[in-house]
C-alpha cells in the first residue's frame, strides 16, 4: 500500500510543477504582555485605492497563541498587487461602536502655564488660528472682568493670537466644562477697557494682536481647576473645525461592502489598542513572509488610516506607512523585542521595603467605578512602570518620629484629628505636600498613581492584574481587609502591620494594607483618564505631575470607606491642603 502511494507521488513529482500563486504569509507577534494588555487580534484589509475588503478578528488569550499568521494572495500574473493591512492587537472587551473612522492623534501637549496673578496671565503663549489649544486654569480666584450683563470672577488662563487682516472671529470652548466658562478677547490682556468680546460670539476684529482670556467660575475646585480645549478660528470655519475635533457619532466611512454592508459593528477602543498599518506588495507567482511585531509602546496611538500614517515603535509618533520587508518563504519569526521592563529592582530592598517588579499593563479598570464620580477608572491607559522599591506598610508614627528626631520638620498640628494612640498607627491627617516631604526625607517620593495601582494589583506572573490582593473574588465583610462594614468595635484605624489583615491584605510582593486601613496619597494631580493631562501622558512612567494642583489622587480604601466592588482599582481625589483621619501614605524609592 505504502509502496503504491509512493509510486504515485513520484509520478506526480516528476511532472513540471506549476508556479505557486503570489502569496505573502503575514506573521503577527507582539511584545506586549498577554493577556494583560492584548488578547485579541483584529485584521482589516484594504486595496491600494482604499477599498475595505476583509475584516477578521481572532482571540489569542495565551502568550503561546502568538504569533498568529494568515496569508494574502493573488492570482494576477501581470503585476504586483498592493494592499494595506491594519493590524490591531487589543485586550478583550475593549471595543466601541464603529461609526466610521474617528482618527484622533495622541496629544503631546506641553505642560500648561498656570496663572495665579495678572502678571503671569498677561504673558501668554501665542497660539495658531484654527488649531485646538488646551488651556488650564488654576485654583486661585484672581481675575475679575465686567461684561455687558454680568461680572465674572474666577481663575483664568490666556492665549495670544495674531490677525493679519480684518476677520470675523469666533472663540469658544470645544471640550471641557463649557457651562462655567466665560471667554473674553482683549486687545491687551491687563487693560479692561480694551475688551472687544465678552462671550463666545462672533466678533469682527481688525489686524493686530489679541489676548483671549478664559475665566473659569463655579464654586467646586474641579470647575476652576480644569482643562478646557479652546478653538479660535474664522467664524465661517469655526463650526466645521470644532466638529472635526469632536466627531459626532454617525454612520461613517469607510464601510466594508461585500454582499451588502458587512461592516463590523464594533472596533477596538483606540486608547488601549496597538494599531499598526502595513503595506504588502504581493509579487506574481512568488511566496514570501512578512514578520510584523506590534510594539507595546504604540498602545494607545491610533493609526491614521486616511492619512496613511502609523505608529511603529515609538509612543505617540506616527510615520508614513511603508511596505513590509519580506523574508524568504519558510523563514522563522524574528526575535521579540523586550517591551516588559525587568522584574528585578535596581537595588535590594532595605528593612521595611518590598521590591515591586516592573510591569506593562492597562491602568484603570473597565468594570469599576462610576462615570458620575470626579475620577472614573475608564478609559484604561496603557502604562509601563519600571521596577521600584515600596514601603511594605503605610507610614507609621514610629517611623515618622524617628525621622523628626533626625531633622525632619514635624507635621503641622492637625485640625480635627485625635492624637495617635499607638506608635504603630499609620500617619494620617497630613497634607499632600507634608506627606511628600516625608518621603523625600526618606530618600524616595510618593508613588505615582500608575506605580500604586501596579503594586496593588500585579499578579506574580506580571501578565495581568487582579482586583484584590488575594484575587478577583470579593471577600465578605471585613475578614480580609480593614474596610467599612466591620463591626463597630473593629471599625477604626488599625496598626500598619496588625493581624489578621497583615496576612490577608497583602500583595504577592509583600506590601501590606494596600486595600484597607487608610487611603493613600499618590504624587499625581487629580485628572480624569479622558482629560488632556492623561491623553497626552506617555506610556512609559506616566504621571500627572503638578505640585500646585488643588486636588491629588488618593488610592485604596479605608476603615471609613466601603465600595469593595472596585477593590484596588477605585480612584478618588482629596484637597491637597487638608489632611483627614482615614488618609495616610507610603513611599516609593526609584
Amino acid at each position: 500500500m505504502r509502496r503504491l502511494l509512493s509510486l504515485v507521488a513520484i509520478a506526480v513529482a516528476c511532472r513540471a510543477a506549476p508556479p505557486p500563486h503570489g502569496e505573502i504569509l503575514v506573521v503577527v507577534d507582539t511584545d506586549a504582555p498577554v493577556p494583560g494588555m492584548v488578547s485579541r487580534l483584529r485584521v482589516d484589509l484594504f486595496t491600494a485605492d482604499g477599498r475595505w475588503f476583509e475584516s477578521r478578528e481572532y482571540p489569542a488569550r495565551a502568550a503561546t497563541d502568538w504569533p498568529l499568521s494568515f496569508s494574502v494572495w493573488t492570482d494576477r500574473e501581470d503585476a504586483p498587487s498592493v494592499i494595506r493591512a491594519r493590524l490591531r492587537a487589543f485586550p478583550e472587551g475593549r471595543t466601541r461602536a464603529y461609526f466610521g473612522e474617528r482618527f484622533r492623534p495622541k496629544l503631546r501637549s506641553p505642560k500648561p502655564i498656570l496663572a495665579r496673578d495678572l502678571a503671569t496671565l498677561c504673558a501668554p503663549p501665542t497660539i495658531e488660528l484654527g488649531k485646538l489649544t488646551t488651556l488650564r486654569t488654576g485654583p486661585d480666584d484672581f481675575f475679575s472682568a465686567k461684561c455687558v450683563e454680568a461680572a465674572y470672577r474666577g481663575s483664568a488662563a490666556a492665549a495670544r493670537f495674531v490677525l493679519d487682516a480684518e476677520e470675523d472671529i469666533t472663540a469658544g470652548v470645544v471640550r471641557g466644562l463649557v457651562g462655567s466658562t466665560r471667554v473674553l478677547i482683549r486687545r491687551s490682556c491687563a487693560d479692561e477697557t480694551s475688551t472687544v468680546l465678552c462671550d463666545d460670539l462672533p466678533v469682527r476684529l481688525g489686524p493686530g494682536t489679541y489676548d483671549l482670556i478664559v475665566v473659569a467660575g463655579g464654586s467646586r475646585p474641579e470647575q476652576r481647576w480644569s482643562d478646557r480645549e479652546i478653538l479660535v478660528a474664522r467664524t465661517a470655519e469655526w463650526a466645521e473645525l470644532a466638529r472635526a475635533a469632536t466627531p459626532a457619532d454617525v454612520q461613517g466611512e469607510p464601510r466594508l461592502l461585500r454582499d451588502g454592508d458587512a461592516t463590523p459593528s464594533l472596533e477596538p477602543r483606540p486608547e488601549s489598542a496597538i494599531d499598526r498599518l502595513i503595506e504588502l506588495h504581493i509579487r506574481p507567482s512568488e511566496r514570501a513572509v512578512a514578520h510584523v511585531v506590534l510594539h507595546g509602546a504604540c498602545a494607545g496611538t491610533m493609526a491614521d488610516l486616511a492619512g496613511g500614517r502609523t505608529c511603529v515603535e515609538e509612543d505617540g509618533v506616527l510615520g508614513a506607512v511603508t511596505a513590509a520587508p519580506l523574508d524568504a518563504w519558510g523563514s522563522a519569526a524574528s526575535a521579540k523585542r523586550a517591551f516588559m521592563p525587568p522584574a528585578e529592582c535596581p537595588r535590594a530592598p532595605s528593612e521595611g521595603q518590598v521590591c515591586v517588579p516592573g510591569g506593562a499593563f492597562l491602568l484603570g479598570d473597565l468594570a469599576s467605578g462610576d462615570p458620575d464620580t470626579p475620577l472614573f477608572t475608564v478609559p484604561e491607559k496603557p502604562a509601563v512602570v519600571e521596577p521600584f522599591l515600596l514601603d511594605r506598610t503605610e507610614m507609621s508614627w514610629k517611623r515618622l518620629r524617628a525621622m523628626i528626631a533626625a531633622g525632619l520638620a514635624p507635621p503641622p498640628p492637625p485640625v480635627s484629628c485625635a492624637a495617635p494612640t499607638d506608635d504603630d498607627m499609620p500617619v494620617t491627617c497630613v497634607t499632600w505636600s507634608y506627606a511628600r516631604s516625608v518621603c523625600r526625607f526618606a530618600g524616595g517620593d510618593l508613588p505615582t498613581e500608575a506605580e500604586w495601582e501596579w503594586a496593588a494589583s500585579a499578579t506574580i506572573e506580571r501578565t495581568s492584574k487582579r482586583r484584590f490582593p488575594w484575587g478577583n473574588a470579593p471577600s465578605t465583610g471585613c475578614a480580609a481587609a480593614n474596610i467599612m462594614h466591620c463591626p463597630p468595635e473593629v471599625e477604626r484605624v488599625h496598626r500598619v502591620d496588625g493581624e489578621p489583615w497583615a496576612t490577608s491584605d497583602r500583595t504577592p510582593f509583600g506590601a501590606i494594607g494596600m486595600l484597607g486601613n487608610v487611603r493613600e496619597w499618590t504624587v499625581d494631580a487629580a485628572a480624569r483618564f479622558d482629560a488632556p493631562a492623561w491623553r497626552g501622558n506617555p506610556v512609559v512612567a506616566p504621571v500627572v505631575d503638578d505640585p500646585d494642583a488643588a486636588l491629588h489622587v488618593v488610592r485604596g480604601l479605608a476603615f471609613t470607606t466601603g465600595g469593595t466592588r472596585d477593590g484596588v482599582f477605585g480612584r478618588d481625589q482629596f484637597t491637597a491642603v487638608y489632611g483627614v483621619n482615614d488618609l495616610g501614605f507610603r513611599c516609593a524609592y526609584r
Partner: protein
Amino acid sequence: MRALLVLTVLLLVAPARADDDEKTTKARAEFVLGTEHVQAARWGEAIGAFERSQALRPHPLTVYNIGACERALGRYTRARDRLRTALADEAKGLDATYATEARAWLAQIEALLVHLSIAVSPTTAAVSVDGRPIVNDAWSTGRVAGLAAPGPAQPLAGAKVEVLVDPGPHVFVVAAKGFSEAVINRTFTAGARAELTLDLERLPARVRVRANQPGAVVAIDGLDVGVAPVDLTRPAGLHTVVVRKAGFVSYSTQIDVSPGQESNLSADLEVEKVPLTKRWWFWTAAGVVVSGAAVSTYFLTRPAPDRPAVDGGGLEWAAKVP
C-alpha cells in the same frame, strides 16, 4: 411677637419721604400686607409678602420678620438662617431691641434643632429631605436640611455628614445609579442627636447574549439558560458565559457586570475542526484508496497538475486580493 412686628411696621412705614421712588412705595405696601397676615396668624402668606418686600427694598428688619414667621411655623432651620442673616446685617438698621430678641430666639432654636449624622453607602448616593436637597450651612461647617428650594436629591460628598434638621417627621429619599431607590420616614424629637445609616441595595445586572449561529445553547455559571439570543437578569458580579453548539468551538468568557449595567455579548462560534482520523469517512476512504489502485493511473495521465494550494498560516485564513 405681634407687637414687635407692628412696631416694625411703624418704623418702616412712618418716615415716608418725598424722594421715595416707586420701588420703596411698593415694598412698604407689601410690608404692611405682611403685618396684616401676621396679625391673622397667616404665617405662610406673611412670608410671601415680606419676601416680595425684601426683593424690592432689602432691609434687615424684613429678614427678621421672615425669620419670626418661619419660627412660628416650626421651620427652625429656615428661621435660624433668616435670623442669623438679619443679625449679620445688624449695622444696616436692625434696632437693638430686635437684635436682642433675635439672639434669644436663636438660642432657643439651637436647642430645638436635631443634629443628625447621616452615613450613606454608596458614598455617591444622592439624598433629599422632604423633597429638598441638603445644602452647606452658611453658619457652620456642617450641612442643613430644609433651606434649599424643592429640587432633586444631591450627593452628600462624604461617607458620613452632619446635618441639621427640624424636629418632627421627615421623608428621606436616597438614590444612586445602579442601586434601588430608598424612601425612609423618620420622626425626631426636639434637640435630639441621631444617626441615620442609609445603605442602598444594589440593582441586578442585565445580561444579553447573542450568537452568530442559530440554535446555540447559552449557559451562565454552568446553568443552561436557553437558546441564543437570551436576555436575563443576574446579580452584579463575575459570571461565566458559555455558548455552545455541536460542530462549533464553544465560546466561553467571563463578564464582570456592575449593578444596573446592561451587558451585551456576541458569541462568534467558529466551525470545529475534527481530526482526520476521527471523521467517520476516514477509514472508508482509506479502504477505497487501497482497493482502487487503478486510480493512480488517473494521476499519471491527467493533463496538468494544479498550482500549489495557498498557505493560510496558523489561522488557516488566506485572503484573496480582489
